[in-house]
């Protein structure tokens, strides 16, 4: 029986028969459907994915006419991480003129709002200068990163220390205090960068620290939306599921713990988000057919229900892209194509 080369969620190669690919796709979509209570992929969509994985081509792409907008998280820091000796503005020019980027993002190497706060005055002139010499829309991005507000990094008692001692009320109080600090920092940095001319603010990896962080991000966005009605606000999520680290946090009457992407999107719209980034984490010991089917199913539920553009998060370890620092082209382009043509995304 013929076997087709694909990969596992950690990026390592695996060979599968057509029947095995189809079984994994069906199980992947069913997993998403069961968890989020959304319809699974249709028979045609499953067949599309089977053919995608049977294709012997290394790189694949969307049909002409199906191209979408690409936005980026942690834009300029990617060059620093790769140890490429270029300035932030040079990084933006490389994105613009050599990588064909539809949008740009300026970012601090310590990619969180809290560490940006004391150095925002150094970021603003870079943004202002970059805006003079680049053409695509330019975001300023950072992560809400509520973890930085807990001791020893921040002022609040650490919930991870309190919870094992059974101090649940104290842990929740600490989260509430951290939310207030984080909201102030996000509003301050977002306002300053918008006042300097940024086209938009990107709240990236939102809710990484769970439901309290999601609340902080929504509250900050709500304030910024009122303050700047024309500001573009993008919010990319940390995972497909809001962790209930607090457990009793609500926004607009909705409990945040346990929300899946299409429900996260509803609250994002209410808060004033312009572009929403649904995220699905990779399960490393399952195959790519399983992971991609699951990821596009979660995304599709957002595309079908949402009223705002959705850009799926498609970095290492999310959105069907294997969890490895050097994602293989065959795996990444399959995830990319499937997310656009089956996930019906407006961008990635």
């Amino acid at each position: 029986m013929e076997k087709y080369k694909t990969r596992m969620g950690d990026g390592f190669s695996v060979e599968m028969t057509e029947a095995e690919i189809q079984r994994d796709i069906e199980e992947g979509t069913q997993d998403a459907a069961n968890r989020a209570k959304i319809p699974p992929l249709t028979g045609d969509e499953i067949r599309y994915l089977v053919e995608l994985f049977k294709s012997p081509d290394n790189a694949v792409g969307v049909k002409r006419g199906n191209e979408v907008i690409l936005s980026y998280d942690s834009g300029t820091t990617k060059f620093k991480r790769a140890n490429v000796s270029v300035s932030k503005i040079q990084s933006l020019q490389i994105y613009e003129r050599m990588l064909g980027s539809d949008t740009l993002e300026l970012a601090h190497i310590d990619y969180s709002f809290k560490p940006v706060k004391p150095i925002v005055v150094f970021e603003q002139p870079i943004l202002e200068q970059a805006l003079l010499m680049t053409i695509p829309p330019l975001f300023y991005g950072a992560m809400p990163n509520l973890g930085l507000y807990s001791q020893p990094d921040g002022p609040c008692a650490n919930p991870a220390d309190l919870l094992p001692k059974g101090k649940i009320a104290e842990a929740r109080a600490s989260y509430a205090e951290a939310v207030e600090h984080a909201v102030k920092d996000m509003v301050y940095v977002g306002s300053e960068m918008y006042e300097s001319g940024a086209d938009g603010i990107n709240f990236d990896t939102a809710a990484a620290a769970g439901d309290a962080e999601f609340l902080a991000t929504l509250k900050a966005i709500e304030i910024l939306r009122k303050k700047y009605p024309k500001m573009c606000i993008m919010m990319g999520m940390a995972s497909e599921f809001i962790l209930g680290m607090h457990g009793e946090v609500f926004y607009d009457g909705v409990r945040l713990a346990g929300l899946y992407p299409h429900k996260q999107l509803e609250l994002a719209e209410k808060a004033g988000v312009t572009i929403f980034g649904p995220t699905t984490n990779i399960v490393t010991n399952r195959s790519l057919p399983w992971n991609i089917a699951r990821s596009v199913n979660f995304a599709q539920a957002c595309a079908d229900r949402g009223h705002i553009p959705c850009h799926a998060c498609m970095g290492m370890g999310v959105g069907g892209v294997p969890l490895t620092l050097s994602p293989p082209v065959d795996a990444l382009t399959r995830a990319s194509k499937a997310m656009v043509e089956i996930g019906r995304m407006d961008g990635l």
Partner: protein
Amino acid sequence: MAISHGIASGMGGIRTAGDLVARMQMTRGMKIREAKKYVAEKLKISVEDVADPVVMAEVREDLDLGLVNAIPRVTKGMDAKFRIADILGIEINCVSRFKRKVGLSV
């Protein structure tokens, strides 16, 4: 990552009308089809052509919207965005601030 996504699914930025379509998502909250259609109408081209680098190079040159290549006397940054804001009928934050800075009416 950026290169692979760009080849698989990206519009192509200023090689095409990727930056213009992105602006419609960002300023008007348009989904991708609506944004492409809006840009195509404003540029007086077909929707398919908004992602065609050959057609768009000519359109961008004709309308002076900025190009990938460094050509003398072609707009290259803020000047291109002045024209983009005008042609798309949108407000661009840095353009408005630039105008206020130099005493031009917004």
